[in-house]
Each structure stands twice: as C-alpha cells, then as structure tokens.
C-alpha cells in the first residue's frame, strides 16, 4: 500500500458503500490498519487514501497524548468504521489539521465538538457511537475522505478569531 497524495483524483471522489462483508474485505481492513500504524501520527486512515473507493475508515487515538505533559486523549480505542454515517453534530471548535495525503501543510478547520454516528463492523453489523473532542475531529476528518472531501475544503483563515474551546 501507499498513500495517495493530492491532487490525485482518487481523493476527490465519492466512495461506494461496503455491500459485501467477506474475507477479502476483512483482509483489506487488517492490511489497512497495519499500514496506518506504520505512518507518522498514524491515528486515522480512510480507504480512498490508498486508492480503494469504498466507505472504510479506521481511527485509533489510544497512543495519542496532548501537550508536554503527555495527557492521554479521551478515546474509545480502535474503531473500524464501515459505512459510517454521522447523525448528529453538537457544538463547534477550531482546530489545526493536516493529512497524510496533503504533506507539509496544516491549517485551521472548524469541526463539531461532539457527534453521534452509526457504522457497520467488519461483519456487517451496525453499531451506534458517540464521540467528542479530538476523536470526534478525527472521525469527521476520515468520514470526509469517504465523500471526496479533504481538510483543504474546510480551511478557515489562520486569522480566524475563534479560539479553541477547552
């Protein structure tokens, strides 16, 4: 696998829903996760970033920490999300994002603070989730990839007068 980088057209296309939950799919998910863990940061990845136009993404903020004191980031471990649908958005905050598919560029993006969403697991069973803070931001970033959206599509001015909420 390798990371596609913008302006690769695969990153700007709408991805198809997962319809067949078979061993081939599970094998792909396993490989995608292993690949994600080899990347710097490595807290999230979406299938289109490796050229597969299917609604699959993985998020795992377990190893992530904040600030010099290395405070852990609240998270619910590894999430394998197939056909994720965000159903509710609550609050908003400004945060800085970058993307493995957009090297050497970071910018400010406004995201919902808290989201509810549903997603299928690797066997096609649907689950409901709630997430907030950094993990919610990561999920919104990855779900955007499935709709052909990059954080570049949501950039706001670096002089935006909206401070991060705690």
């Amino acid at each position, binding site marked *: 696998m390798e990371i596609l980088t913008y302006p690769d057209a695969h990153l700007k296309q709408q991805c198809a829903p997962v319809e067949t939950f078979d061993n081939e799919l599970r094998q792909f998910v396993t490989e995608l996760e292993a690949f994600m863990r080899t990347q*710097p*940061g490595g*807290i*999230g*990845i979406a299938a289109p970033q490796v050229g597969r136009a299917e609604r699959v993404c993985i998020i795992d903020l377990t190893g992530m920490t*904040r*600030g*010099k*004191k290395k405070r852990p980031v609240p998270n619910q471990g590894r999430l394998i999300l197939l056909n994720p649908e965000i159903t509710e958005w609550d609050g908003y905050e400004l*945060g*800085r*994002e*970058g*993307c*493995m598919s957009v*090297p*050497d*560029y*970071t910018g400010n993006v406004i995201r919902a603070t808290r989201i509810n969403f549903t997603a299928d697991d690797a066997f096609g069973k649907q689950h409901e989730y709630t997430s907030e803070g*950094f993990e919610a*931001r*990561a999920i919104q*970033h*990855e779900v955007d*990839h499935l709709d052909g959206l990059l*954080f570049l599509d949501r950039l706001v001015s*670096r*002089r935006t007068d909206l*401070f*991060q909420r705690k």
Partner: protein
Amino acid sequence: MRNWYMMALVGKDRPGIVAEVTEALFAAGGVLGEASMMRLGSNFTIMMMVEIEGDEKQLCEALQPVTERLELHLHLDSIDPGLHQHQIPDLRVLVYGADRPGIVAQVTGALAESGFDITDLDSQVGGDSEKPIYVLMIEGVASAGVEVTHQALEPLSESVDFRVEEIETLIG
C-alpha cells in the same frame, strides 16, 4: 540563471495592487513562492517570494511600470527559498491591553527567554484614538510547554491580559 528573491512592497492601500503586481511578475516569467500580504494602518504591505530568470535589476525593471503607477516602494533580498520545511506551531499566545510603548518587546522578550520560537505574529491597534488597545496574536513552537510559557508572561499581567493555549494538530 533563475534566482529567488524576497520581495517587500509597501504603498498606500488601493484596490488592485495584488493583481497588478502579480500580473507584471507573471508576464516577466516569474514564479511565486509563499506570500503574506495585508493592510497595516492605511498601507498595503506585500512580502512575497519570487523566482525569476535574471537578477535584481531585471526584476526591478519588470515591476517598474506598476510600482511607479501605484507608488509602491520595493525592496529585494536574495534568498534561499527553503520551501517544504514548514514548522507546525504548538502554542498560541493572545495578548491584549491598553496600548503603550514596549508591549511587543516585553512579550516577545519573555517568550524568547522561555525558548518560544515565533512562527507567526500579527498585531492590531484597535479601540478609539483616545484610548487605543493593542491586540497581539502569536503562534509558535514552544520547547518548554504551556505552563512555562505562561509563567514567563506572568510578570506582565499587571499591564496586559493574556492567554496561552496549546495547538494540537491532527494528522488524519
């Protein structure tokens, strides 16, 4: 031979400056790098990286019709472009207070001493002309973290209000 220059242009603000300057550079075969342009007071300021086939003299000549018509002051420095080496800021400092001489020197002095490397600073004078206020927004890389930076600014809290916060960057 192609050369990189940092080009500074300053003049009274009016509509169309950016369009005319960049059109002249494009027509001269120039390539633009990163740029920062803004209105400061009633002046328009441009800091822009330009790569051109030729030297300073040729770049000046290419811009002369525009700088003359728009009354812009031009300054050029030969530079190493150093593109694709962005630093990701991890701390933001907001300072504001009644305007007085020395705010920027004291704030940035304290920050420098604490090991804070500024990547971006912008400041504005607001309020009314009798009671101006100064607002300073700084981003940078803090080697020592948020608490140390906060402590470094604490002695200034008599005369200014300030806030220090982490900038966490998500790479997804």
